[in-house]
């Protein structure tokens, strides 16, 4: 904590941090704030009124309170974009780290473990209800194989798991169309629930951190301290998890704010287009979409637009500071 304050930061950095803290606070405390109006109900007596006493930031063309919408949008940010970013970064770090560390040929499983994997897969396909058992079987066979890996005699037949190709292939597949098109296409069905939207954001966002961590891992893997870990006879899983992955994940610090900014932009774009959204869901994007119905009501566009822009600029500032550290 002292190191954090000792480092000389520009004023812009502290402004950015305080703005982000304000938005996060609004989002977390949203439901318990004493707001006079809720975000989804319309005040039909005050349609498109400029900022004044009962509606402090005005109302939109449908009579919805802009201040309440702002708070609801901040809540959506904290509950969807933020967890999606961290989940995507974690998933990307694990997958990219495994791909860079083991490559296509170095993760060799004993044939027995592969047989177990195959059997578990077969069983799962026939009985999808038993998901827990499948996960247990997968986990234990992976763990067992990692445990046995170093102790297997050379003669015992092993097969290589092409982690690198699998991860890169999945990334290529997801990168074949831009993320917005992908989300729009998948939103063609019924409206997303919160968890579905979160999951989809994670799915479209993980390849970016994975690529970065994989590249870093290729560099870290040949560093002397990893060589020393191999030489001291540590099991590979332990070297990967305890020594290589933390070092390779350092570069994520400046990527995570940018990635969060990207996901906020993506989620707001979807909300702005009104695709895959529940009809009563209010976010900054949907507020901005409402601004088109009444072009003279400048406050409907200015308030959420400014909030969105300031948030994204603040995240960019934080990313720059993290990179220059």
């Amino acid at each position, binding site marked *: 904590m002292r190191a954090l304050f000792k480092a000389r930061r520009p004023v812009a950095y502290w402004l950015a941090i305080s703005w982000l803290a304000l938005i996060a606070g609004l989002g977390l405390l949203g439901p318990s704030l004493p707001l006079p109006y809720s975000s989804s109900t319309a005040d039909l007596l005050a349609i498109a009124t400029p900022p004044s006493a009962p509606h402090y930031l005005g109302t939109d063309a449908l009579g919805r309170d802009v201040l309440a919408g702002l708070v609801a949008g901040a809540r959506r940010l904290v509950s969807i974009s933020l967890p999606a970013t961290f989940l995507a970064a974690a998933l990307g770090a694990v997958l990219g780290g495994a791909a860079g560390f083991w*490559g*296509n*040929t*170095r993760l060799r499983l004993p044939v027995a473990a592969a047989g177990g994997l195959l059997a578990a897969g077969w069983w799962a*396909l*026939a009985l*999808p209800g038993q998901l827990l058992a499948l996960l247990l079987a997968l986990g234990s066979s992976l763990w067992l194989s990692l445990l046995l890996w170093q102790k297997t005699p050379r003669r015992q037949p092993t097969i290589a798991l092409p982690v690198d190709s699998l991860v890169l292939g999945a990334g*290529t*597949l*997801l*990168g*074949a*169309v*831009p*993320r*917005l*098109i*992908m989300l*729009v*296409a*998948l*939103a*063609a*069905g*019924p409206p997303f629930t919160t968890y579905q939207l979160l999951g989809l954001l994670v799915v479209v966002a993980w390849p970016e951190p994975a690529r970065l961590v994989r590249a870093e891992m290729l560099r870290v*893997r*040949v560093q002397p301290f990893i*060589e020393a870990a*191999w030489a001291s006879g540590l099991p590979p899983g332990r070297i990967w998890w305890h020594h290589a992955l933390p070092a390779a994940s350092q570069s994520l610090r400046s990527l995570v704010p940018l990635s969060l*900014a990207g996901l906020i*932009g*993506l989620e*707001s*774009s979807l909300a*702005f*287009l*009104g*695709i*895959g959204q529940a009809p009563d869901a209010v976010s900054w*994007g949907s507020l*901005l979409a409402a*601004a*088109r119905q009444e*072009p*003279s009501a*400048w406050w409907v*566009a200015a308030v959420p*637009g400014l909030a*969105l*822009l300031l948030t*994204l*600029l603040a*995240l*960019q500032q934080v990313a720059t500071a993290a990179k220059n550290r």
Partner: protein
Amino acid sequence: MRLRRFRGKRPIAWLPVRTSRGRWLLVRLARAALAAWGIASLVFVVSRLLPGGPEQFALDGAGEKWGGASAGHVAQMQQAARQSFRHRLGLDEPIFYVTRSPAPAGWHWHGRHNQYHRWVVQLLHGGLGQSYRDGQPVGAALGRALAYTLPLTGSAAVLATGLALYLALYLAGAPGGRGRALVRTLLGGLQTMPLFLLALLLLLLLANPDGLNLVPAGQVPNAATSSLSQVLSYWGPRSLLPLLSLVLAVLPSLALPLAAALHHELGTDYATTARAKGLPISRILRRHALPNALIPLLTTLTELLPSLVAGTVVVEVVFALPGSGRLLAQAAATHDYPVVVAGVLLTALVRLLGLLLADVLYFTLDPRLRPLA
């Protein structure tokens, strides 16, 4: 590089150092084509697995017609209507070659009688299917929409590239200065701004009936009767703001890396030699540094076309242009799966085109990369 930890038996044959660069690029293209097909298939299967298919949407308003009948009768008739609707669209067939059904439980092989096989065969014959909404062929609708989108994205790509070259040369021309700092800050701000916010800002500032209005009112010209000049004079001013927002949205991602690359090239030995000879900085930048700095930019160009296509989805909705982006957005809002899948396929093909273009440009710009054969 140490080789001690290298345990693989096979030498890494697919790396570019081992084979000719040309073959590697071919492999890259093939991989991208495979990914395009894979993503379209994924969207096809997932969209048909989702609950609440198109018949739900189409028959939602149909309940009132049977107002006189009893509730049970209405439910029966709705069920029948749903069945016939699904049968008409071919949705009652199995989705994929194998599906899992609850009764009799287990996996079933359906052979060629499934929706996916029909779609692939149709695609190989050049057909994209028919829209669920109006029964029109998707290819024709997409073609009509592309007549608006292609000029828009094409001119946006050309304009953005030209402007990025100019701005990067300007930024790299001298180390400091207030003007350059301002341009840099503006570009950085634009880079974080989502496209919809930018487009909305331009719309509300420059095409506002209560404020400054650059877009004059006018009759929509009939494509069959009106002349080319009429069509141009109607759509010209209307595509100005969409064009501007697309260009501004992709400009930072082109200009900033190019400026950084130019800056890097200016620090190399050949640039120092050129300066020692007494060449002016602008000439060094244009004739010596730029060709070398352009090569890393080509990778960015690959992503330029798909990001422009993604941008049209937003821009055409904001400015109400009847292009392919708005077609895709409307199709997604109305559960029109064939149009959605066609849009995804189109975008993936555009990315493939971008890859191909970048590869051709690589070979043209850098003779070292040309295959020997």
